[in-house]
């Protein structure tokens, strides 16, 4: 009585799974949680320094922004916050559009608008942070009105 033998499964050139979906939505889900955890620290820190410390919201003017962006620390902080918050927010709005906009065309148009706003805002904000001049001068070589006091001293 010979032992029964089983053929090896025919696996190789054939895909047994019919699913060819990408993991895009899983990575999107994961990104929301990871970026959210970082944003909690970045945004609450941002609010605390700008609204609670010093003169609070009354102290906000060009000089306040110039004083912060004179330091690479706050440049990197705000750059990270800009990118993460914009991608996190756009992805959240994308989810909301997918949930409530029923017509294909409505979804395409709304999501295109979100993408345009995302690219425009991130590019603009990044350029502003990197090309910021705390002590801008006019064509005559004199400081513009409203520059912070540390420019002239």
């Amino acid at each position, binding site marked *: 009585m010979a032992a029964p033998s089983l053929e090896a499964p025919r696996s190789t050139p054939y895909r047994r799974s019919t699913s060819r979906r990408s993991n895009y939505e899983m990575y999107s889900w994961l990104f929301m*949680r990871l970026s*959210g*955890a970082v*944003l*909690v620290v970045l*945004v*609450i820190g941002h*609010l605390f320094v700008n*609204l*609670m410390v010093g*003169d*609070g*919201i*009354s102290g*906000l*003017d*060009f*000089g306040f*922004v*110039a004083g912060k962006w004179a330091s690479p620390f706050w440049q990197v902080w705000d750059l990270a916050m*800009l990118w993460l*918050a*914009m991608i996190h*927010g*756009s992805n*959240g*709005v994308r989810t*909301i559009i997918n949930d409530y906009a029923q017509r294909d065309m409505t979804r395409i148009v709304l999501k295109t608008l979100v993408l345009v*706003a995302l690219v425009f*805002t991130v590019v*603009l*904000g990044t*350029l*502003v942070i990197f*090309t*910021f*001049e705390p002590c*801008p001068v006019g064509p005559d070589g004199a400081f*513009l*009105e*409203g*520059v912070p006091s540390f420019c002239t001293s």
Partner: protein
Amino acid sequence: MATETSTRSVVPQGTLYRGREGMWSWVAHRITGLLIFVFLLVHVLDTSLVRVAPEAYNAVIETYKNPVVGLGEAGLVGAVLFHAFNGIRVMLVDFWSQGPRFHRQMLWAVGALWVLLMVPFLVRHLSNVFGG
């Protein structure tokens, strides 16, 4: 149906996302998220005026210094803090083994933390807005 309900509590307790705390926190998370996103677009645009001229930026910021915008800012900070703490709650529900069990209690913790931070913030901010 009758026998099915008799084995459970008559008052619906809700699930993670259907009904009661789980659902309403999800609704609030969406609304606050959308609100913050719209504000963020405006916030980056007006801050970009620092690249135009100091006086252009100061002129726009000056128009914000009134009680109506001041109250709006308070509401915005309230929305941000809720979204932040409820976001941590969502992460705990998803990644902590005991998260789904305690999701309702964690929403109360979110509320408590929110009140704890909003009180000192409102004292500071509203005295700035209304104190001149």
